[in-house]
Each structure stands twice: as C-alpha cells, then as structure tokens.
C-alpha cells in the first residue's frame, strides 16, 4: 500500500489515479500511524514552497516525514514535493525546507528569453542511472510545470537533468529517497513506467 501525504496540496488525485491505474492500492492521509505503516510514501505538491512548509508544520508532518525517511521506507517527492526535501528556496526566503537532501531551489533566470514557468515536455539526460529510470532511455520526454528549480549540492544524487536555459536537476535518488521535479503522473507512458519502477522497488 502506498500512502500519499495529504497536506491540502493540489493534484493529489492525479497521483492517486495514476497509481490505481497500475493496480496499486493507495491511501491519501495525514495520519501518522498510517503513514508510518505504509510500504511506500509519496509527497506530492503543486503550489508555493512557503505555504507548503507551513501546512506540513501545521499538520505535524515534518517530524513524520523525517521518521519515514529514517525508517528506510521508499519515499518519493513529486514537483514541489521534490523542492521541499531540500534546504531552502528563493520562492520563500528565510523559510527552511525539510533539509533531507543538500541543495537549494532557485528561480529560473529571466534574462534567457525563456517563458517562466516552464510548462511542457522536456527531454531527460541521466548522469547517473537511477532505480526509477530502469528501462527508460536518455532523451525520453516528461512533463514539467515549474518556475523554480533544484541545484543539488551533491551531483551523485542527481539521476536526471533537463535543459531550460539552465541545467535543471530533474530527478534525485539517495538510499530510500526519490524525487522528480516533473510530473510522472502526467507524463504518459514514460511517467507511468517511472511510477511502476517506484511501486516495484
């Protein structure tokens, strides 16, 4: 059973439905005991970094997430859920992220002639082979929607990058922690394969 952390973030249903289409049992919850018992946990998210940290704090989920990670339960952050795993974001100066992985979230530079947010399909390059990317070749496309992007501190965590004026660290993995800036639940067959790889861990 996979638990999706419910902290009032948008697009939770999309993740749920994608997992269900793969035959997985899913529960959306913020109940600590349920989250700690789940086989795997997903932190989804669309919205703003500062608000999201506030919600996680309000619902007492920060310590729960840290426990899940310490328990070595496979944990997947999606979109804002990736960003929250890091130390800080330019979107919310002064707000501390979960700090589970080292790195910072920065805004796309506005001087490259590119539209912000990045909305659309972009191809992936895989500097390190990630477990979520089993059977997925370099150059496959996934769907992104974001104005801020990850600069990971430790390149060995980075398993996928994409180019949008700058190099975006699009997916990271370390031990039981996984995260994608793009939306696997909205990335057609490639995305469903990534979610299947997570289910099969």
């Amino acid at each position, binding site marked *: 059973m996979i638990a999706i952390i419910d902290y009032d973030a*948008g697009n939770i249903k999309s993740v749920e439905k994608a997992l269900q289409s793969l035959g997985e049992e899913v529960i959306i919850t913020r109940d600590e005991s349920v989250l700690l018992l789940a086989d795997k946990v997903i932190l989804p998210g*669309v*919205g703003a970094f500062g608000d999201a940290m506030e919600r996680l704090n309000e619902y007492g989920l920060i310590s729960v997430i840290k426990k899940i990670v310490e328990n070595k339960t496979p944990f997947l952050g999606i979109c804002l859920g990736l960003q929250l795993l890091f130390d800080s974001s330019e979107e919310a100066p002064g707000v501390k992220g979960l700090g589970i992985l080292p790195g910072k979230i920065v805004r796309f530079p506005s001087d490259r002639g590119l*539209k912000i*947010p990045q*909305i659309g*399909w972009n*191809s992936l390059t895989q500097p390190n082979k990630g477990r979520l990317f089993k059977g997925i070749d370099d150059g496959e496309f996934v769907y992104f929607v974001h104005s801020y992007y990850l600069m990971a501190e430790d390149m060995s965590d980075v398993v996928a990058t994409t180019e949008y004026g700058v190099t975006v660290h699009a997916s990271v993995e370390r031990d039981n922690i996984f995260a994608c800036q793009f939306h696997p639940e909205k990335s057609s067959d490639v995305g*469903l394969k990534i979610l299947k790889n997570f289910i099969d861990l």
Partner: protein
Amino acid sequence: MHTIRVIPCLDVNNGRVVKGVNFVNLRDAGDPVECAVAYDRAGADEVVFLDITASSDGRDTVVDMVREVAKKLFIPFTVGGGIRTVDDFKVILREGADKVAVNSAAIKRPELIREAAEKFGSQCVVVAIDAKRREANDGWNIYLNGGRVDTGIDALKWAKQAESLGAGEILLTSMDCDGTKAGFDVELTRTIADAVNIPVIASGGAGTLDHFVEAVKQGHADAVLAASLFHFKELEIKEVKQYMRDNDIDVRL
C-alpha cells in the same frame, strides 16, 4: 530539449464532445474520455476541454467528466467554459484537472485571476482570450461570451494585465480565423507572445501543416491548438509534429 506543444481541443456539451464551427453549428462526436485517451495515444501533449453547456443543471456534468477523464488520462488537461468563481476552480482541480481556463468571468472581474493564482498557483490559471481585429486594423479587441460581445478592451493590454495578475498561460483564439482553416492569426499571436513572459497557446484557423509551423516560427507561439482538424482526422497529431520537426521545431515524438 524543451518542446512546442500540440494540443487538441474538445468542445463538450452536457458531457458529450461536439465541435462548433465559428462557435455556432455543433456536431455531436463522442465520449470525452475516449477522445482524450485516443489523443494521448496519438501523441497529444495535452488536451483542452471547453465546456459549452448552457444550463446550470448541466454544469455538474463537467465535474463528472473531469473525474472520469482523470482516471484514464495521464497527460495534462485543461478545463474551460463557464468558470466564474474560485470555487469553480477548486471543484475542477480537485477532481483531477491540471489547469482551468477562464475567459468572460476574468474580463468582468480581473481579480478572479489573482485570487485563483494565489490559491492554486499560477501554473493552473489559463486565461483564454477571444480576440478580433478592429475594423481600423490597428489592433485587436477582446470578446465576451464565446465571441458575441465586443468589450472594446485591447487584447494586448488585457494579456499583459492577465499576466501581471498571475495568469500562468494564455490561450489566444483569433475570432477572425477560428473555423476558417485559413491559418492562425500570426500577427496577433506574435504581438501577444512577444509582449508577455508566460506561454501563449495559439488557437483558431489551423488548416494545413504549414499553419502550425507559421504559428511557431512567425507567431512565436509556445503551443498550438486545434479542434475539428484533429477531431475529424483531417490531420493526425503525429503528422503535424513530424512536419514541425522537419521544419526544425523541437517536438515530443
């Protein structure tokens, strides 16, 4: 490699797919879920549903539709038509839509854009603009209610205002070109696309493969949208994308 999106639009009335030619004559043509999934298989990058249901009773059918589509469709989809309030946004997004397109209600009360963007994020707020060239040929005005009422507001001015209020994307339809298959209004598209820093979807007028290339190369569109052309298989999405790629436009193929 960031790619230009090709987006089919499905007009929906009481839960069934139709396509209006110049927004008036409608032809019934199928189940929204099946159509959308078929478009995913055919290589669509996103799908837009435009709800044209008139009656308020019928409004619930769009929510049911969103719920059913979200179970089967794993590419992004936008729902527009008849969205009036932040609550309308909430219901549609909660059931699994990725974005909501707002048109007349935002013209009548621009703050709706800001409220929705603050609550749900700019990424899910699409401002749909129906623009028609002024008779003096010195620009375009925006129209209300599916293109029936001239607001007298300049399209460029409105697009910039929508951006500053927090819109994440602009869905720009040329009323002059819509349904003509004579090509997108490239000048309109470029005028808006160059003036804002958010993506612009060009809509209205696609009839040939070259039209899609023009919308991107000359119109600077970030995405191209067509309805009946794809719905009646006059052109296949893959064929359009291949042609765009042959013309040095990055697409997902």
